[in-house]
């Protein structure tokens, strides 16, 4: 918990005045695995923590995401693209919220609210093969407005 809090506070307290790009955040750095991410939302940064820092994502991974909403949403779709050296190797789209069916408590939130998710997520990946991966994660609402956006770099050795 403390590690998470420190990580989230660290970048939220960042004051970036001149750059047009948000700073790169470190999710974790171990000898065999490194995770970094950068917000690709022009308006704001995003908080992401993942634990444990392990190449095996078979077991439950604890994920924490903090995101401020610039728009309301009833529908929320997550789009994930994985690239190795600019070549798309994996693409996935998943509906997180629908007007008729709410899987998470944050479904149906309004502009200005903070979406804060903390909980176990199952990726179901045995082990991340060696290599450098660029992952783009985007969240869209019903009007195709980009609610959240992060470019993640993952280096597995």
């Amino acid at each position, binding site marked *: 918990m403390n590690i998470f809090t420190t990580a989230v506070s660290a970048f939220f307290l960042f004051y970036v005045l001149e750059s047009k790009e948000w700073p790169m955040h470190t999710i974790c750095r171990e000898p065999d695995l490194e995770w970094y991410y950068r917000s690709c939302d022009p308006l704001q940064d995003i908080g992401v923590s993942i634990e444990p820092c392990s190449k095996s994502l078979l077991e439950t991974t604890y994920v924490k995401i903090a995101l401020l909403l610039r728009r309301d949403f009833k529908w929320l779709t997550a789009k994930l693209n994985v690239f190795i050296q600019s070549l798309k190797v994996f693409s996935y789209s998943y509906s997180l919220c629908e007007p008729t069916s709410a899987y998470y408590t944050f479904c149906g939130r309004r502009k200005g609210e903070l979406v804060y998710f903390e*909980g176990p997520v199952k990726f179901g990946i045995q082990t991340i093969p060696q290599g450098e991966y660029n992952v783009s994660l985007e969240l869209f609402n019903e009007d195709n407005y980009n609610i959240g956006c992060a470019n993640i770099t993952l280096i597995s050795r």
Partner: protein
Amino acid sequence: MAFSKYFYGVILLCQVSFPASEAATTCREVTVNNTYSCEGLGLTEVPESLPFTTETLDFSFNILSALYSFTFSSLGKLVYLDLTRCQINWVFEEAFQSNPNLQTIVLVGNQLMYLADTAFAGPISLKHLFLTQTGLTCLMFVPMHNLDDLETLDIGSNPISAMQLPDSFPIKNLRYLDFQLNGIENILAKDVEILRQVTNLSLSLKGNSIKYIEPKAFYSNNFFSLNFAGCANMVDISVILAGLMGVSTHILKLGTFEDVHGVSEITSNMLQGLCNISVAELSLENMNFNDFSASTFQCMTRLQKLDLTRSNINFFPPDIENMSLLTELILNQNKFNNLCDINLASFSFLTHLHVNRNFESLQMGSGCLVKLLQLQYLDLSDSGIKSSNCCSSELKGLSNLKHLNLSNNDMLSLQDLAFPENSKLEILDFSCTHLQTSKSPFVNLQLLRALNLSQTSIDTNNQHLLQGLPNLTILDFKENRFLFDTIQNDNLFQFVPNLEVLILSSCELKFIGHQAFHMLKKLKHVDLSYNSLTTFSSNAFINTMYLNFAVNSIQIIPQEMVNNIPDNSIINLSHNPLDCSCSNIGFISWYKQNINKIEDPEDTMCGTPRAVEGTKLSALMISCGMSTEVILIIVLIVLLLIIATIFVIKCFLKKRYLSI
């Protein structure tokens, strides 16, 4: 603990500064003299440039820190004011005194530290107040003065621990009361007694970890909607239902959420309390039934709609009785192996059935739906369905079916006359399901209006595929292939003469026969985008109002083709390598004179010659042949020559005559 973390996050986010941008600091005019957006401009006061007539103002994501009686005094006509995340901590007395027409105040995401007793004084009839994520710890913090006409009060996502509604609580017009995601643990009858005087209220207590509700706390209340989803994680659902004893509500939500930890188990016994509640629509999403049996439904006999999405159900007991009022059953994201496992004979009055995104590969079985004589809407999408001889036995008995969704499944093989008993079908969706078809699968669907065959790998050589669909108006054929990537003059569309909308995008088409659509006299909307067409042919689309040829390989367009286009139609030619040399001058001139008919002119650009590649067609400067100036000069020279010749001849003749 959870709340302290949560609000820590909120407070931290309030300190975030955004990267410096060179964006304008003037508010955007949405409608003249009426609606303005100053969102995210970093403003510390209301700009003087906003007109007095402004009725709707989005002032979200600015920096105000405090609201005084003079803050909005220049905007006397305000009706809607959005102050989301403006870092407002103080709302002083009569902050809105100059805004008598104000109906909506949005204060979402401001850490309110002080609300004066007369903070909301001024507006004659304040109707909607949003106080979500404002850090309120107690309802008493909100002054009730001048809130008599309130219809919406949203105080969700705050750390309020008790729902003690004061005697002065505004109930006269109240329609929506939202207490979701607070820290309410106990609800006593006296706390909510005042709500007995309200009818048709929608009350949300979603996501409060309730430990105790006094039995009959809401007795004799008439609600429109009650949301107690995610509330029964510390206690079982019977505690909630006991508190709701004697209540009448149209909608009741009792399910839970993936991110709410704790109890999600449910037993038939726990649901006994439903017998003492009058409810029409019940949702039990994300619950796990320990003893799913006929007794689970014992107190659901008066239900009209039941939602059991993601409830880990793989069968329905066959002996469920007295469900004759139930017209809609939602069973999405469950674990059925076969439609027959739902034992739908118990639900013979259903008009709507949803079994989409089933977690197992669903078999449609034979005659499983035969008792559903009233069924009008059936959604079996995204459920891994494979069927080698669809669908006469699978959809047997559904004589009133109007809308069938079989999209995003594995593979369906449609037999001849595939829907013999479903002749009332109006909408049929097979998108993203691999289809194999016999000669004429839809032959009896006289009433079918819309057919989605996109991404179905359907056999487009079968000229009789669409036979028997005289009323088809919408046909989606996206991402299917045609033989030789060509639509011949003689093709499968001849059987759908009433077609109005035809989508043929991403079909890798290279050529369309000039007479390909000559039978389709009513065609209004044609989408041929994302193909490899090299010619623009409008002959085939005489009355078409919308033609999309975007992202093709069209270079030259003969002028006679565009001359045929009716006055009120729209065409899209963006992302084509259009030729901008003099050989295409006829089209370019037409384009410039008819720019109002063009969709997406920003992306309609020259492809050749290289010198003008990427230039917008609308901005192209081109001159072909002789210009008017040159012609004028030539005419002048000729005229001068003629005059000179006449003069010379005159002189010559004069000399001759003089010499005589």
